[in-house]
């Protein structure tokens, strides 16, 4: 009987050891690379990593797609265990992460890679990682809010001239009032929050004044009102309907979605579409509200110099070879790639075709942008649809942002 218990205990020990060994860091020869790329883009990043590892580097990269990555980052940073060597974060996280002393400057990593420098990347993507003169990130892409158009519907409604100057204005859209067949709409409400944030720039405004959040402002009101006009005229897809799918089913002339949706649209049979700038309140200025995926290193005392050098090699490989990333529909940040002839085959190359277009890719870098974006996303649908009073709701939104800032910034540092 004793023998049996002994054997069972031995098996248990082996099993537990096996499991624990599996959980542990497999080695000094692997750069653990976390990304939040849970969609199709994860497969393109997988391919890039695979291509890099095929170059037989001394230290290979292990791509870990991490759902709910920011939550997991909180956990590992808090415990100090399991911190990834490299990660992709969004541009709007950088100021907060730097403030909390969570990011390692990237300068040590790129020291041996002279081509990883500002001149070789889209300027606004590079600059979002620069806080107080220190570079914390290297950009992979810009992912922008853009506007798709249905060529057949534009022709049907004699609206092709809207595209002449590459700026579709609210007034041009309103000119179609009463001219559409039942069930057809001028524009959908996909990524409506980003459209509003673009209009704020078009109107010469901002989301902050002297470092304080500025939501309850005349510019915000005007931005909402300009978009609301389209809805009031019955030209926006109905509230609660999936405007994205309605564009794909060819009932919508314009869709204000992300560059990344181009691959899905391309898969829809018979959908004859093109891409242009998000509509604007005036023809003089247009903004495509954007964000950026950035390579960054969270603070990790276990990251060795060898690993840092390996990360540098990987980032240089990405700079030179990220044409694969264009397949995911993203605007690749590396100039070597986005200026290459091959890149011109991708629809999003429209946004790097001129200086004016590059300038239109706008990334908010205000420290508390995430709270403002949350407030805009929460309330924009109801404001634009006229379900709530605009003045009252702007007050609520301002309070929403201020309360969250006050509450979140009180923790010990």
């Amino acid at each position: 009987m004793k023998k049996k218990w002994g054997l069972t205990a031995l098996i248990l020990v082996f099993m537990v050891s096996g499991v624990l060994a599996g959980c542990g860091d497999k080695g000094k020869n692997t750069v653990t690379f976390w990304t939040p790329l849970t969609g199709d883009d994860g497969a393109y990043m997988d391919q890039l990593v695979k291509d890099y590892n095929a170059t037989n580097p001394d230290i290979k990269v292990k791509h870990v797609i991490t759902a709910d990555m920011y939550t997991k980052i909180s956990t590992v940073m808090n415990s100090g265990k399991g911190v990834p060597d490299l990660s992709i974060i969004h541009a709007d996280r950088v100021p907060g992460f730097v403030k909390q002393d969570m990011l390692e400057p990237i300068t040590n990593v790129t020291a041996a890679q002279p081509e990883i420098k500002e001149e070789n990347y889209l300027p606004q993507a590079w600059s979002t990682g620069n806080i107080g003169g220190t570079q914390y990130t290297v950009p992979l892409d810009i992912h922008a809010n853009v506007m798709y158009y249905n060529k057949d519907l534009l022709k049907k409604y004699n609206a092709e001239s809207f595209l002449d100057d590459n700026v579709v204005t609210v007034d041009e859209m309103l000119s179609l009032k009463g001219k559409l067949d039942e069930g057809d709409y001028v524009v959908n409400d996909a990524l409506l929050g980003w459209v509003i944030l673009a209009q704020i720039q078009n109107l010469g405004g901002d989301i902050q004044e002297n470092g304080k959040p500025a939501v309850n402002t005349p510019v915000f009101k005007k931005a909402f009102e300009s978009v609301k006009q389209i809805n009031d005229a019955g030209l926006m897809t109905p509230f609660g309907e999936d405007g994205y799918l309605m564009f794909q089913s060819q009932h919508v002339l314009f869709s204000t979605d992300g560059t990344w949706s181009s691959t899905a649209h391309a898969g829809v049979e018979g959908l004859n579409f093109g891409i242009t700038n998000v509509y604007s309140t005036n023809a003089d200025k247009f903004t495509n509200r954007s964000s950026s995926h950035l390579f960054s290193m969270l603070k990790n005392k276990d990251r060795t110099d060898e690993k840092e050098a390996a990360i540098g090699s990987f980032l240089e490989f990405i700079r030179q070879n990220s044409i694969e990333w264009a397949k995911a529909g993203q605007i690749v940040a590396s100039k070597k790639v986005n200026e290459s002839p091959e890149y011109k085959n991708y629809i999003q190359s429209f946004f790097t075709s001129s200086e004016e277009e590059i300038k239109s890719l706008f990334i908010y870098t205000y420290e508390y942008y995430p709270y403002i974006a949350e407030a805009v996303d929460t309330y924009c649908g109801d404001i634009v649809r006229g379900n709530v009073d605009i003045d009252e709701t702007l007050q609520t939104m301002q309070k929403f942002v201020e309360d969250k800032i006050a509450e979140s910034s009180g923790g010990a540092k």
Partner: protein
Amino acid sequence: MKKKLNLAPVFFVGPHLILFAVFIFLPTLYGIYASFTKWNLMSDPVWVGLDNYRTILFDTESTFHTQFNNGLRNTLVFVALSVPLLIVIPLMVAVALEHKKVKMKTLIQSILYIPGLISISAAALIWSLMFNKQLGITGNVFGSDTAWAAHQPYAWIIIIVLTVWGGVGGNMIIYRASISGVGQDLYEAAEMDGAGSIRKFFSITLPSIRFPLIFTFVMTTAGAFNVFGQPLMMTDGGPQQSTHVLMMYIRQLAFGNGESIAGMASAMAVLLGLVILVISALQYYVMNRNAT
């Protein structure tokens, strides 16, 4: 004679106890502690005593007070709408399936149970498409012109339909198991006394399955208070925040877009836990007292 120590139960219960302690009990304790702090997950929590609770419950100017009230009200609406349906419908199905004339009981039971195995995200996507005016069957087959997710009470209706569709099977299995254990002699005796189906149901079936009923009622109610996936996926809390339930606010605060406000989120979670605890105790007390 020395009694031999029996370790077998320890091996059976031990792993569960360890997992319960590590993944449920200790995090719950830590959550309660966190509710008395200002904490953003990254830095060390700062003790603020009852401040979070004071803000949530009494500071009427605060966004957190508004969110808590709105979230709790919407959660209570969901509980009130879904729980009766999740008790009555499975009970009726279970009783019907016990009838001798019903064929293919296992097949029917499986069909009703399978939706509960589908992830809530997948189920919500499927139902959202079905209720889509342009692309779904409600518009194309039944000619409905309703934008279901955009207006009340339709937004609640689609959430409840999904919930009932996914939740009927679980309770039904429990009721069937309980009903099949009720002695046939009781029914035969009642029949001899001239009792009809309804009388037999109220006088024999219901009292006989009292404890499973209390169990499912309490558990279904507690589960309903934790509703999250259905409104998130189907209405995203709209229209006008009317389906924005408390769990959505809690998650948003703890792991939302900006810096985490985990201390406040924990306080809301503790308050929600207390509400569930009080209501469950009341349910148990009332049902058990009425039954004895």
